[in-house]
């Protein structure tokens, strides 16, 4: 996945924040996933509108104590995991 690639949350997945973590339910499969604080933050952004990986990394770097490059690595890895589990629009 390239930094300019746009991703958006699938409408078939819903999320709830409980106890500082985010639990994601895939309505298609009934499978649920736990996201840490960064994962929940990224999900909350791509739930609202499509974002590029680079823009997501900017947002993560601004809110968490990491550099842009570190954030981009994390964002890319998470985006790939979302895609593998068909949690993104069009994935």
């Amino acid at each position, binding site marked *: 996945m390239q930094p300019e690639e746009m991703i958006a949350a699938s409408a*078939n997945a*819903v999320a*709830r924040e*409980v*106890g*500082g*973590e*985010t*639990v994601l*339910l895939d*309505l298609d499969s*009934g499978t*649920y996933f*736990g996201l840490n604080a960064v994962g929940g933050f990224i999900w909350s952004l791509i739930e609202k509108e499509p974002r590029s990986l680079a823009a997501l990394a900017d947002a993560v770097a601004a809110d968490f104590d990491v550099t842009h490059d570190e954030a981009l690595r994390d964002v890319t890895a998470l985006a790939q995991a979302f895609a593998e589990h068909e949690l993104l629009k069009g994935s």
Partner: protein
Amino acid sequence: MSHEPAFQIHGEREQAGLPAAPYDRWVSPDGETTAEFHRNNRGYLIRFPEQADFAISADLQSVACHPAPDMEADAIRTLFANSVRPVIGNHTGELNLHGSAVVIDGRALALMGLSRRGKTTLAGAFAKAGHPFLTEDVLALGQQDGSFTVAPQRPILRLFGDSAAFLLGDEPGEHCPDTKSEFAASAALPAADCAAPLGAICILGPGEADSVSLTQLGQAAALSEILRHGFLLDVEDKPRLHAHFARVAQLASSVPCLSLDYRREFSELPQVIRAVRSHMEEN
């Protein structure tokens, strides 16, 4: 639910093949299908293999049961009360979960876990120790003043023979060992007849702990655990699945959830009760 669905039991009949594969099924931990869910032009049909078919009208207002041959009426009523009624209720916005509950000092303790994890036996042991049971199989949750409550269900415990002998002080071998029998509440095993605020949820583990183990789960872990114990009529109905998820998330956020494990020996139960009671007193 605005009112209870009308329930009718018709004559027994063989379970003929159905035109399509089920869209959902319940499977026991040992891989046996315990229920199959079908749609037809009249609504839903839930088939309990070799037990009964329950046809649910599309408006959820009526349920017609055709028992399989030689099924007893009590078993049919149990299937309706413990499985069919809860799935219909959840479809209409209720929150019914699979589990037992007892009352400890005015607060309900819910016991959840996979089949054969000992929920009913533990509920019976609590009752025997003076903590009446509210339900043995269906946690019918309500909300009052922002808190969850557990409503009493049928004052019956369904027990395997060894559990019945232990709880009732009968001779081993006096009760059928391989099938569950119904035991009405009694002075020895009292039932509660009023709803109680839900104080805590215990998720029963597999029985691998060397000693009684009681640990608090985080809210996200609690949500994942509790989701496994819902009754869903239509897993393909996404708006309702979403709503059910939201209700369970609210429950996980507002009620402490504990992981409980212990060796499945009757001699362990008094210690389990002491540990849980002590935890409830301190929290």
